[in-house]
């Protein structure tokens, strides 16, 4: 691949081990000019951004997932090998920035030498150069560059040092990539691979021997290898008794032997550098104190989440209520004003009101991740998780699930064992995500008296109880799936625990911004659409029925001498019953009656299956308090007045409220989560199973709760 000229859209890949600070560097180089998509054909998140260097055409910088070697054990790692062994692919980079942690060069050079042997123009980026001064580490960059035969640039992504030199080096490389190609490989395929390669070398579309070797190892799962070649490889492997694992171990050991002397000659450690992390870990990973601190940390986190998100949420609600009133004053009364205020504004407000909580939760979780605590949490709970068929890494997903199941499910990609990963995906949506919060807030006041015992508010305790119910049901469901599903695949812990570091605030900020943006765009689209459709369904109905409803409302108003708001409420109520939404509610009423719900709750339940946060907005529309925005208290007052016409009792009594709460804890009411499950598991089978088990669990439990309490 010689280029006489710079390609019009050069692609530069950012590759490195997990915890090498690769993403920090990516954030530093691209800032907010990042695009998030998926790698073709897989669901691994692809981050790319544009980099402008002098007069060169804009460079596309692709942030590849972290990988340890060309012998992948997780989906993330597979992707790196897949793209870097496919010279015909769109993402095949013109050059690679290989990021290595300066303090872990003895490990991080393994993948470096492998990629170098694939004949890719490379720059070695030594990250965390700030450690050189603080820890007394010394690196002879010139010598390292000479021995590895690549340009070496030291940067500090944390402090933003070395960027200019790095850009300079990328520019030089893109202008003359041929000059940056390796002269000799670090490793020649050994005895174990010689025979099989002799057979295959001509057949395989390989750039060199090492490329051919990797294709031989991985042909069975590499997507760009055609079926015919796959068969050829398989036959040759059998014929020559090629033992993939043995060859891998042999290669890895040989590589370590090759670069270890280079590291020894160029990197000098001054004494034991990790004593700070060690001392913290003495406490945080202590077998008794560690779990206690973890639980305390989580309690603090959720407490802060509610305490700190209160006023921005009030602010957002106030803003949309005011905006709605403003629009009502401005537009002439009629369907347009109703659609704008009750449909669109109420829907938008319903989405944006979650932003403070989601932002805060991601803020905390990103900090825990950045600091290095998440790996410790995975270590602490691995043994416990294994009893439930999960992996220590599942802890990360189960914590993140309390913000939103979607990124939580995506975080399971680091779990190498398919069964453990699948179980984590299946049960994560049972943890109480932030979309359930407003539903809980409204219903708890009907379920639990506003009293306290020994200073603990009953409602607060009930809230905590619902969260506990969610996590307990997740663990219990995992246990059941563990017993049903069988697998022979080996499970790993083998988790690196990076040194503790203070968080890089740029990374935290960018992550929170990206998650919030995704939430607003993705969830927003659905909620807005549903709000508009729901508004239509509840405002219109079969014309004859609607006319009838209007007439009967007029009679009630006249008989009771009502006027103003009261009269309007009567009209709205009668019309809702006659509307299409009313028909849907009545249609499902027989199914939900054993749970203690009437047809109005039925409408809310029905719409909640798209996204559970729609509940509040639907309640607002149903009880025609839409003009007050999503003011939970207003809706709550209106709900409290609702009387069952048959029994004369309040509709929202304790039994119904608890039944609804339990239903919302368990039910799979989020289309986006199902879509992510489908993508991550590669088919409809698992999302259907997930939907069925969660919703059945919800139905049966809610019925049991109602029948016991009623």
């Amino acid at each position, binding site marked *: 691949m010689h280029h006489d000229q710079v390609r019009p859209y050069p692609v530069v890949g950012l590759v490195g081990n997990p915890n090498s600070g690769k993403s920090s560097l990516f954030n530093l180089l691209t800032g907010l000019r990042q695009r998030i998509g998926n790698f073709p054909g897989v669901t691994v998140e692809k981050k790319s951004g544009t980099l402008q260097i002098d007069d060169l055409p804009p460079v596309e910088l692709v942030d590849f997932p972290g990988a340890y070697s060309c012998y992948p054990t997780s989906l993330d790692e597979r992707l790196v090998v897949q793209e870097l062994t496919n010279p015909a692919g769109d993402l095949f980079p013109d050059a690679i920035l290989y990021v290595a942690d300066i303090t872990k060069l003895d*490990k991080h050079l393994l993948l470096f030498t492998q990629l170098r042997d694939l004949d890719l123009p490379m720059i070695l980026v030594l990250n965390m150069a700030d450690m050189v001064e603080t820890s007394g580490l010394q690196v002879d960059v010139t010598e390292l560059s000479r021995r590895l035969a690549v340009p070496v640039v030291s940067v500090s992504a944390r402090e933003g040092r070395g960027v200019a030199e790095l850009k300079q080096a990328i520019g030089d490389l893109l202008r003359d990539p041929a000059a940056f190609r390796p002269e000799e490989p670090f490793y020649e395929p050994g005895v174990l691979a010689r025979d099989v390669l002799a057979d295959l070398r001509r057949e395989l579309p390989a750039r060199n021997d090492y490329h051919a070797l990797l294709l031989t190892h991985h042909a069975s799962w590499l997507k760009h290898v055609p079926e015919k070649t796959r068969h050829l490889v398989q036959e040759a492997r059998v014929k020559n008794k090629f033992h993939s694992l043995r060859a891998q171990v042999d290669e*890895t*050991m040989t590589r370590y032997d090759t670069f270890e002397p280079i590291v020894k000659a160029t990197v000098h*450690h001054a004494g034991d550098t990790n004593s700070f992390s060690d001392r913290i870990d003495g406490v945080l990973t202590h077998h008794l104190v560690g779990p206690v601190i973890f639980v305390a940390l989580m309690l603090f986190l959720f407490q802060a989440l509610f305490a700190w998100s209160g006023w921005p949420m009030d602010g957002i609600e106030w803003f949309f209520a005011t905006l709605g009133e403003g629009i009502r004053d401005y537009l002439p009364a009629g369907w347009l004003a109703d659609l704008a205020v009750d449909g669109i504004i109420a829907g938008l407000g319903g989405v944006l009101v979650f932003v403070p909580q989601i932002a805060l939760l991601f803020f905390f979780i990103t900090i825990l991740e950045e600091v290095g605590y998440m790996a410790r949490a995975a*270590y602490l709970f*691995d043994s416990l998780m294994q*009893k439930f068929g999960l992996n220590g890494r599942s802890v990360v997903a189960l914590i993140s699930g309390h913000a939103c199941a979607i990124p939580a499910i995506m975080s399971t990609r680091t779990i190498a064992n398919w069964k453990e990963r699948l179980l984590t995906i299946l049960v994560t949506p049972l943890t109480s995500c932030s979309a359930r919060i407003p539903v809980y807030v409204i219903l708890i006041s009907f379920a639990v008296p506003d009293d306290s015992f020994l200073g603990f508010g009953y409602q607060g305790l009930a809230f905590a109880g619902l969260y506990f119910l969610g996590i307990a049901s997740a663990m219990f469901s995992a246990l059941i799936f563990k017993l049903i599903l069988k697998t022979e695949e*080996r499970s790993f*812990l083998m988790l*690196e625990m990076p040194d503790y570091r203070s968080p890089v605030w740029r990374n935290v900020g960018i992550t929170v911004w990206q998650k919030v943006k995704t939430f607003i765009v993705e969830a927003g689209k659905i909620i807005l659409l549903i709000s508009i459709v729901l508004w239509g369904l509840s405002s219109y109905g079969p014309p004859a029925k609607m006319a009838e409803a209007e007439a009967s409302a007029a009679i009630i108003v006249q008989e009771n001498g009502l006027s103003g708001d009261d009269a309007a409420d009567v009209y709205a109520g009668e019309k809702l019953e006659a509307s299409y939404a009313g028909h849907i509610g009545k249609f499902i009423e027989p199914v939900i009656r054993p749970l203690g719900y009437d047809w109005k709750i039925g409408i809310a339940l029905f719409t909640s299956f798209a996204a559970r946060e729609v509940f509040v907005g639907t309640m607002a529309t149903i009880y025609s308090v839409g003009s007050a925005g999503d003011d939970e208290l207003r809706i709550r007052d209106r709900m409290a007045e609702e009387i069952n016409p048959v029994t004369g009792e309040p509709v929202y009594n304790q039994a119904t409220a608890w039944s609804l709460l339990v239903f919302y804890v368990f039910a799979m009411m989020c289309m986006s989560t199902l879509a992510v499950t489908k993508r991550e598991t590669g088919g409809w089978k698992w999302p259907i199973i997930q939907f069925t088990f969660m919703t059945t669990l919800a139905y049966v439990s809610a019925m049991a709760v109602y029948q016991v309490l009623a």
Partner: protein
Amino acid sequence: MPFPRSTAASNFAAGMSGTIDRFTNENLAGKLLDIGVRPGSRLRLVRRGPFGGSWYVKIDRHCVALRQQELACIMIK
């Protein structure tokens, strides 16, 4: 092949250390090598995790978490 007098790391108690000699399971060996655990590395069992089963291990200067059965395939000399 002569067997040196080596013992599996899983037989160690917290605080004990030694030099890694070889691995007895190829499947785990590949993955262990990837994360930088290799023959010649110094291994020290720092502490046992809660609920049993996992260990906080120091390999040279780096910290990793390993399960009991992962330690069982690491021979120490």
